[in-house]
């Protein structure tokens, strides 16, 4: 893990971020992957909408949590995020979804290691 300096001169740690957008019905599938890869915590943004290959995806309807799309944001070391991506590649053979990987810098690296409190 590399350490850098951010514009306001705080010591920061470089980690990987994964963003995953799937149908809300598949939320449990992604959670299983994140847990198995040892990602300690993640954020779920429910009720996201957007344009995709299949046209516009509406947000969720009020009486069905499994309708619409959800977005996961997870941050962890490169190895764990790589594991998640590998698992997702398998999942996307059968299920719709997109994922983005990027480099991020965080202030508290211990917060994103397995066993830490979810963020």
């Amino acid at each position: 893990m590399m350490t850098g300096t951010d514009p306001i001169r705080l010591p920061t740690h470089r980690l990987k971020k994964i963003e995953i957008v799937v149908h809300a019905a598949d939320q449990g599938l992604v959670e299983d992957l994140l847990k198995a890869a040892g990602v300690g915590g993640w954020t779920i943004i429910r009720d996201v909408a957007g344009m995709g290959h299949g046209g516009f995806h509406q947000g969720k309807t009020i009486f069905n949590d499994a309708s619409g799309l959800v977005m996961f944001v997870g941050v962890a070391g490169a190895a764990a995020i790589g594991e998640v991506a590998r698992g997702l590649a398998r999942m996307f053979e059968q299920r719709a979804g997109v994922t983005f990987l990027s480099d991020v810098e965080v202030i508290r690296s211990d917060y994103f290691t397995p066993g830490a409190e979810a963020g």
Partner: protein
Amino acid sequence: MNMMAQITAPERQLSRTEVAGLVALAARRVPPLWPLASAIATNPLAGFEHLPFAEAVASAARQFGAAATLPLDHWRNWLAAGRVDQAALRSAAVTRLGGIYRASAPVAAGLSRLDLLLARLLTMPSPAAAPPRRLADDAALIAKWCAAFFDRGQAAVPMPHRELGLYRAVLALLPHDRAFTALAGPAGRRLLLAVPRDPLAAVAEGLAVLDVPGGEISEWLAGLVARLPGWAGHIRWRSEHADPELSAGAPATMADLLALWLLLARAGVLSPAPAAPDTRPMPAALAAHCGLDLARLGPDRQVMVEEVARLDDATLGQLFMAAAEQTYLEGLVPQLERAITPPQASRPAAQLVFCIDVRSEPFRRALEAEGPYETLGYAGFFGLPIALRRDGAPHRERLLPVLLAPQHDLAEAPLPGHEAQAARLAAAQATGRHAASLFATAKQGPATAFATAEATGPLAAVLMAGRTLAPRLARRLQARLAPPREEALAPALHHHDPARTPFSLAEQVGYAATLFRLTGLPAQTARLVVLTGHGGAAVNNPYAAALDCGACGGHPGGANARVLAAMLNTPEVRAGLAAQGLALPAESWFLAAEHNTTTDAVTLFDRDAVPSSHLADLAQLESALARAGATNRARRARLLGRTPDALISAACDWAEVRPEWGLASNAAFVVGPRWWSRDVDLAGRAFLHSYDWQTDPDGAALATILTAPMVVAQWINCQYLFSTLDNQAYGSGDKTTQNVLGGIGVIQGNGGDLRIGLPRQSLFDDAGTPFHLPQRLLTVVLAPPDRVARVVAASPILGQLFGKGWVRLVVVDPATGQARRWRDDSEAAPEGTLPHEIVWTQETA
């Protein structure tokens, strides 16, 4: 694939995360299975809903070793009785043969392809239902350990090591299991020492050792999940829907179950997948049945005979089902097409909002006949995503559809002025619990079992005689021991601790407004508005919760009705509604009630709070409710072949296997204002959701109705459909040979898989004739067709249900009264139409 017991691990194997993804996908092959206390209907073919309906039925039949149709004799009986129209069957047969030109091609003089197919449908002998299959030894072994592991307090001695998880706990005990040794032998015992202890690692290693090709892993694992759909479904419920406290101390995931299957696969003792018997006749037999000698036909004609002989019974069953659906559609839809003119508006004496449940409809009709009462249909949880901890109960009840997670935790609290009554009730309940616990402990103790039987036997004999000979008297005596719960306690809308208010004011206004927005209930409400939940009544019946409200998570809906009624009577909520343009008359009073669907009695809650100015209205309404109950009871008694009075006894008779027909015969989901369907006798077969397209310009309310209440209705419809189709594979079999297991489900006899679906008595009469005709849900919506099309196009859930033929959709245009049917993806598109364009009903009739 190498099936030999191989102990060393190969070098290349999948990572834990890859396995986790594959296991999670495989788990979707079966739906979650809720425990009996909160029975939720699910589609046993939910894992196949991405496929067109007919293909899904055939695939699932192969996977689960199930029948794909009822025996044809049942269909032939329905044809004779007019439930399936001859012309509709003929039309379905013509379509199957590729159109009228191919169907009418002559095979011999005076005999066409169509005649051959009709002979197979109508007169050729067809095989009877297959006898129940015996569970293979490997599945029986895993089922046995699942039963031990998942027990919730019924076993006298709990299984040790449960804290390690299902897989590791079973691994620890298998060396002592003679059945395992007999099955897997010494190699199997050696394998127990060598396999990884982590279930995901064990699955990864097993897949590598068995050399399952990468592209086939997911399907192969899904096939293993499908071998015990009951236990796999129980694991899904625990992992995805149960409160964590219910599985604390005994963790189990689908990876645990699959690791056990992989262990048996590595030991080389996996039984072959069930094979469906080939029931197709020989072409020569078909020809002979039609008076022809196959050998004397020309080659082209022989091919024609073979083509019809090749159709399996599943296909023939599908033709009957399609014809039955068309018969129903043609009976219902024209009536709705003619009924699009709204009546003159008049203010009713009371409005009653019922659950969409099919059992509400005939009661509503009976009530409407009793006076100026308007009824509406709304999801029976009244839009409240709540969980309730009842006073003295160990766990909370989730009183909402399983599509939602609870957002508000409520507790019961004594009603003002009834504190002493509540205390007496709590004391009586505590005494009952302690006595039951003491009795259970004494009954199971090796030193106390006989003494307990001797000491309590005479009392038990008296109670048994009372319950058997005079069930209603026994019920009355029992009721005297404790005051009625609903008179002493209510779900508390306001907690005594202000920091723990279950609902903010904005939330209350939101839930109250949703009632109006979704149902089209106008703000000018009647003097009395009754929110009417429902529940069944049965004793000594493991399936009692299946008679309760599905929208309330398999619980009675009275609590939800009480909460929303209390909100709607709160002045601050009324002010909030007025600010949203929903100014309710000050004189409107909201009341909660519960319709007992077994006895047709309606209990009104919180009568003490009704203003004295409304008591006369209430008295009239109660009288009307009682008369409506009697009318509906008489109607239902005819269907059950009993007297109306016998229905009241059935609710408290511990020997009763069919207290009511539940949702059997469900067939339609009707979305529109009540006046539209009011003059159509829907015969207790329709879910009714009130909806006013004029107050829903963007279709948001319609999207909610179709993606939530209709989805729940589809689950119910598919549960009844498939439980009837094959009651052994998709239902739970005969009630009289069931055993209740550990508070979670039933098994047949003394072992095997946890049973899914409905018992035989819920679907068939005592003579074995199906009461429920298996047909897919027909949704009929009164709304502008282009608006419905937009709603469907924007929802992958609806695209799949309508496109793959799981639900049939008919839209009645309010401007013209013309009905159009949504074309499913497999139907040929008339030239010039888009794939999802709505086509005229008449074109496809």
